[in-house]
């Protein structure tokens, strides 16, 4: 194998592979990225057996071939090089990477050890709108724990209907639900659980590509195609919890906040919250909400927000981080908070959101 690529081109692709390769190093080949050069193109491929990414890179291939090279080391080297042409030449058991007056030799691993990846069948392909999908991923991925042994909570439920897409994630304490209306080209409804890593990597790919995404669910794998890049993900096997039932319907005490005001108040007041629980209280009375906190170690804080409210007064307590997680991903000027009482789950929503429906459910804390 022998080829020349532009630094900027290969760097952009290698960067996307950094999140894919396996970090624990239990199987050495999974730390490597496969270079597959034909006379017409260079294909790159990496996987940790849960998620795989394949992409293309422009370059001039003078001698076709296949090899595997440590993804992290190569990325570090390429990043450190000046913006110029990089020569990649296969040697016995190694690859020579050179540019300008820099020359290096990196050990490779046998290409035959690299796992074979499932291929999409192109039978039932859905078209997912770029903007909608990006909204959904950004607004739900933070609610997945990633380390819960209730395996189904390590992913987000993705529901595809002919006329809409829904993504739901929960860590058991709060839940994020986003629905986007769009024509998917599908005939029937289907649902899968996406691993957290898939969502994170998908989020990165969406910020590097503007077009719509082709999606296909195989028997055990999911395929997201974004231009020349394909993200392959294992499906999480299992029953996602009956999330519809924890989204309350009858929360009739509705408050509306200026998003920035609320964000700033919660951030400031949370500075004096208990460091472990991060609890902030919302003391709701006619015409105002006092956001308060207290820490036995440091003291207490209070900030008043004027709201249009005439219902029964009540006090409810939330983990400040859970509230901020929501506020950080919405972009509308106004957000609403719908309450039932001190102990039942609360619902936050962006007001007048464009193109999506976002429902965020939080369980209040005990006070």
């Amino acid at each position, binding site marked *: 194998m022998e080829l020349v690529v532009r630094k900027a081109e290969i760097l952009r692709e290698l960067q996307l592979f950094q999140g894919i390769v396996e970090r624990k190093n*239990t199987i050495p080949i999974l730390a490597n990225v496969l270079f597959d050069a034909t006379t017409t193109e260079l294909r790159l491929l990496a996987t940790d057996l849960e998620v795989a990414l394949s992409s293309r890179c422009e370059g001039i291939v003078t001698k076709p071939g296949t090899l595997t090279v440590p993804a992290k080391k190569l990325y570090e080297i390429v990043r450190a090089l000046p913006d110029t042409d990089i020569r990649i030449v296969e040697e016995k058991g190694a690859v020579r990477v050179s540019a300008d007056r820099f020359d290096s030799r990196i050990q490779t691993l046998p290409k035959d050890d690299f796992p074979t990846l499932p291929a999409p069948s192109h039978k039932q392909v859905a078209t997912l709108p770029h903007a909608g999908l990006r909204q959904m991923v950004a607004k739900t991925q933070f609610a997945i724990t990633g380390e819960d*042994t*209730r395996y189904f909570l390590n992913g987000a439920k993705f529901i595809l209907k002919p006329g809409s897409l829904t993504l739901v994630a*929960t860590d*058991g*304490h*709060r*839940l994020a639900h986003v629905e986007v209306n769009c024509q998917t080209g599908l005939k029937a409804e289907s649902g899968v659980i996406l691993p957290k890593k898939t969502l994170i990597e998908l989020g990165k790919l969406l910020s590097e590509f503007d077009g719509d995404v082709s999606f296909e669910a195989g028997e055990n794998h999911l395929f997201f195609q974004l231009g020349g890049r394909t993200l392959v993900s294992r499906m999480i096997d299992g*029953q996602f*919890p*009956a999330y519809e*039932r*924890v989204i309350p319907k009858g929360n009739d005490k509705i408050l509306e906040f200026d998003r920035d005001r609320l964000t700033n108040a919660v951030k400031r007041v949370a500075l004096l919250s*208990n460091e*472990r*629980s*991060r609890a902030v209280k919302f003391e709701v009375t006619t015409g105002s909400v006092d956001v308060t906190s*207290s*820490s*036995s170690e440091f003291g207490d804080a209070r900030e008043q927000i004027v709201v249009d409210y005439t219902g029964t007064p009540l006090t409810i307590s939330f*983990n400040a*981080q859970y509230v901020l997680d929501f506020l950080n991903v919405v972009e509308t000027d106004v957000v609403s908070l719908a309450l039932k009482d001190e102990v039942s*789950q609360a619902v936050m929503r962006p007001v007048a959101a464009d193109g999506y429906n976002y429902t965020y*459910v939080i*369980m*209040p*804390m*005990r*006070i």
Partner: protein
Amino acid sequence: MPTRRILHLDMDAFYASVEQRDDPALRGKPVAVGGDAARRGVVAAASYEARTFGVHSAMSMARALRLCPSLVVVRPDFARYKAASDTIFALYRAVTPLVEPLSLDEAYLDVTENAWAEPLGVTIAKRLKIQIREATGLSASAGVAPNKFLAKIASGWKKPDGLTVIAPERVEAFLQGLPVDALWGVGPVTAGKLKAAGITRLVDVRAADPEVLRGAVGSSAEWLHRLAHGLDDRPVVPHHAPKSSGSESTYPTDLTDLAEMTREVEVMAHDAAAWLEKKALFARTVTLKVRYGDFTTVTRSHSDRATRDAGSLAARAASLLARTDAATRPVRLLGVSVHNLEETDVETSRPDAHPRLPWDD
């Protein structure tokens, strides 16, 4: 959580071994420590010689004697067991402060960080076994693993005088070979139910239908599920959790003003709240203690939703004053304490004590 190094150390036939150590005539003989068969005594510990006859602890002594007519029955002498135990625990605590006793002869040690700066749990286990033998003449079996559940299974793997290590990379292989009834808490009945559902190996739990699993083991399903993945993040807790906290004050001259008493009670309730917060606990019960001028003492309690909110604890404590004669009799002592504590998970930055959404499970 980074990989921990947990040891489970279990003395071999502890009471019986102490007896055999102290009385040479008992060595090599089947010995059972326990109560008199004629008085419905049970076996507290059986020597390995007795175990070959099928004698085991918790069995009735009468049955033990039927199984092994040559059994030597010894009445327990807890003072000597306690002395041996103290020696052993002192050795443990010289390695790490994170020693969680399960009984006189059984403990978990978290040696992730240890006084010997020893990176390998197995080396610590080996040295401790030698030290125990030198100091007490007794043998212990040890298990070394990344968590408590695996360490406990490991120590039981080879007994007596065993040492079993389950390195993190071997956990999966180990789990694959484990029958589901290897778990404590899974007795023959539960194991039978699980087997009927096609779950014979622990790893079968992973793929089991959650409904079926819940049917067999009830609320332990989630726990079992964690174990089936080799996961157990329970910390090694060196001291048992406190059951209550409180403070009281005796006043130089008896209090007669109810408003003053209320202020005193509120201050003590605030102290209790601060303590709860520091300990990451919630209390369901607030107790008020009142000693009148004539030394008669009463207590009044109030239980409700667990809280550590100072205002709500103070209000609850103050309202208890109304259920005493404090308004009409002079008071020399007041006390406020909190009980029925509920824990929060102190190990995670995200509070696991945070209430969960009302799922159906």
